[in-house]
């Protein structure tokens, strides 16, 4: 009886996000058609959809998405490979962490965008400066999360492992990795999201491809429909990246007996 009664509200709850989405697009379309703004300043959803198809048909959109993704994953991957082990070492040895702390704390608040001029001077034009920027974007948050999560491991885990005769390698693999996983993985997920935000800015400055370049290039030709198409693509790909990270996280969490992450959105 109760579940019968709940059914309509469950369906509504499932549909609601889509309804709100459609409603917002409708308002956008209505404003675009009202004539308050020039079509060049506010392209309508229909025009954006057509621009997306146009970009999609000749494969240009896909190429730009791929260019951005390659840079993000290269920079992100490199940064994780350096930051996580470094964080584990600094987290384990307090003296070392104290020694490195000032330099980390001073470099950390510098926006990755501020690195762009040097990045271009150092690495020229191409993928390398973008990868460097993404490295900087990812490195510090992941490093800090790794340090703090190692330092906050329950001492009893290590104590118990040592009592059973665990070597340093056993402690790293069997204790530190799984114990720090929840905290470190959240930082990876946030860092990947930030990297996706930053790559667009980096590509607007010194790149000849990527979604950031696409947006800037479209603006130069006054194709605001393509600008918005590029923006929405960034949003959708970013959303997909986050969703993939959550599903990986939940898969590992399930294996390691942690509770599932609740995802925001629909």
């Amino acid at each position, binding site marked *: 009886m109760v579940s019968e009664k709940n059914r309509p509200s469950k369906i509504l709850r499932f549909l609601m996000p889509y309804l709100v989405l459609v409603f917002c697009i409708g308002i956008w379309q209505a404003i675009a058609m009202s004539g308050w703004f020039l079509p060049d300043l506010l392209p309508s959803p229909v025009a954006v959809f057509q621009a997306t198809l146009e970009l999609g048909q000749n494969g240009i959109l896909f190429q730009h998405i791929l260019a951005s993704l390659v840079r993000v994953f290269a920079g992100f991957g490199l940064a994780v490979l350096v930051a996580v082990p470094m964080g584990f070492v600094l987290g384990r040895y307090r003296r070392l962490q104290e020694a490195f702390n000032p330099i980390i704390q001073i470099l950390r608040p510098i926006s990755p965008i501020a690195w762009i001029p040097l990045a271009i001077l150092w690495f020229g034009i191409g993928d390398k400066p973008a990868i460097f920027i993404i490295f900087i974007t990812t490195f510090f948050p992941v490093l800090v999360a790794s340090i703090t999560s190692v330092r906050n491991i*329950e001492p*009893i*885990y290590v*104590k*118990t*492992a*040592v*009592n*059973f*005769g*665990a070597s340093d390698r*056993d402690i790293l693999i*069997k*204790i530190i990795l*799984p*114990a720090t*996983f929840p905290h470190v993985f959240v930082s990876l997920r946030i860092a990947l999201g930030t990297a996706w935000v930053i790559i667009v800015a980096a590509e607007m400055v010194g790149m000849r491809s990527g979604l950031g370049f696409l947006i800037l290039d479209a603006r130069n030709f006054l194709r605001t429909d393509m600008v918005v198409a590029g923006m929405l693509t960034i949003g959708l790909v970013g959303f997909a990246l986050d969703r993939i990270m959550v599903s990986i996280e939940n898969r590992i969490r399930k294996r*390691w*007996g*942690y*509770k599932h992450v609740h995802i925001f959105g629909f």
Partner: protein
Amino acid sequence: MSTYSDSEKQPMQKIIIDNLSKNYSADAGKLDAALDTTNLAILDGEFFCILGPSGCGKSTLLNILAGFVQPTSGSVSIDGMPHTHPDPRFVMMDQEFGLFPWLTVLENVKFGLEIKHADKREQDRIAHQFIDLVHLHGFEDRHPFELSGGMKQRVALARTLSVNPEIIFMDEPFNALDMVMRIGLQDEIIRLWTEHDKTIVFVTHDIEESIYLADRIAIMKNSPGRIEKVIKVELDRPRSRDSDSFYKLKNKILREITL
């Protein structure tokens, strides 16, 4: 060493604590209680309780015995050998269980065997044997967060027993449990101790618990933390918690503590 003619009946001294003391320098910010000069011998196969109020240094003493804390002076020897570092033959069980939340019950119990690089099939066999022994059959694939406090302590017990330690150090292991579970696990530990021939050093602040479990009880006191007296519990096993002799002993220890 012994002057007894029937020396075969005399149990061996397993742990010898010689002029042991521990000071924590004030600036180290340590909260652990200090320990005044202590001498003690614990016998092989003995169930030895250390009874005292909080802050009397009983946990400090236990952590030194297990090799986790270095004494300021004096020494501990086990089987005649100096003992200074943690050793899988002498396993500590803490109040907080020390179960790994990312491992299942089975994986937790196998942990010590894995570290020893025991044969994989042997690991499974031994782990299942001890899981059955602590009545956790059917819970092998659960994670610790799905278990009650009592069940967690059983897992910790199975994990400890699976590496076949000679000595088990227990630091108020049943503290976090309610009364019913506590009594159940006290019976369990006595059963396992009787069947498996271990030396157990058991820290508690519960007088009845110490009388129910121990062959001998060391009564500790505060400031400075020290062993005041060692009492032999001359009650037959299995013990009854409501016999006259039980109460008499309880009152005797109470008087000793409040003196």
